[in-house]
């Protein structure tokens, strides 16, 4: 069900600073909302996001209920070598999603 949108430049010059944009579809239920009958809706959020560049973690985020639904996160990295970015989202109720993108560095 869940799906990710990743935006990574296809090619970059060595040493260039590139922007990586990620979006994961997820409700990010805060755990503080109630139904009309007063029952608390249990928390269901993504708690952790990480990005690996050829196996080395270059970015990590801990997320809280204050992150809006469908977490959109952008960050930067230095394009050092051709290879692969691996993204991972981990959350409540066993939520776990991965995505990847490749880059050619000249």
């Amino acid at each position: 069900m869940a799906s990710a949108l990743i935006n990574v430049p296809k090619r970059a010059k060595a040493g260039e600073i590139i922007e990586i944009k990620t979006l994961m579809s997820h409700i990010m239920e805060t755990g503080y909302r109630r139904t009309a009958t007063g029952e608390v809706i249990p928390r269901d959020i993504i708690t952790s996001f990480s990005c690996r560049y050829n196996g080395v973690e270059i970015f990590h985020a801990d997320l809280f209920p204050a992150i809006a639904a469908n977490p959109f996160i952008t960050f930067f990295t230095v394009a050092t070598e051709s290879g692969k970015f691996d993204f991972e989202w981990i959350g409540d109720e066993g939520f776990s999603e991965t995505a990847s993108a490749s880059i050619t560095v000249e």
Partner: protein
Amino acid sequence: MHEHDHSTRRQFLGLAGAAAALGAVPAVTLRPAEATPAMLATAIRNVVGGAVVRTGKVKLDVPPLVENGNTVPMTVSVASPMTADDHVRSIHVFNEKNPQPNIGNFKLGPRSGRAQISTRIRLADTQKIVAIAQLSDGSFWSASVDVVVTLAACTEEVL
């Protein structure tokens, strides 16, 4: 007779007031606790420990007036060369009045190239947002912004 009337009226009003107060108490406690400035201070202390947090270096971009608190664009950037010797280790974002004081913790490093992150956040009320960055030398820098929110997020009822 007249005096008696007055006293019963007063008693009635007193009782009504007490009843209203009793009724109001559970209504208040049912609501999720708001993060108080004290909780914000505790959350910040959990990150920085006893270190001094200085103002500066950090830039926190959030619209000053937000119509819908459910999705508020936010960008945090830190003035840093991002070299192996001098870089931003982490960025932490906090709020004052959501049910929880934390918004997000972001781990960066010399490979980030630029100390800048963006995301979309939720704001339950008009409040202050604080961003704190830890640099590689262990120092902490912060920036804060006041945001006015018209439609609150996080705690609304689902129909």
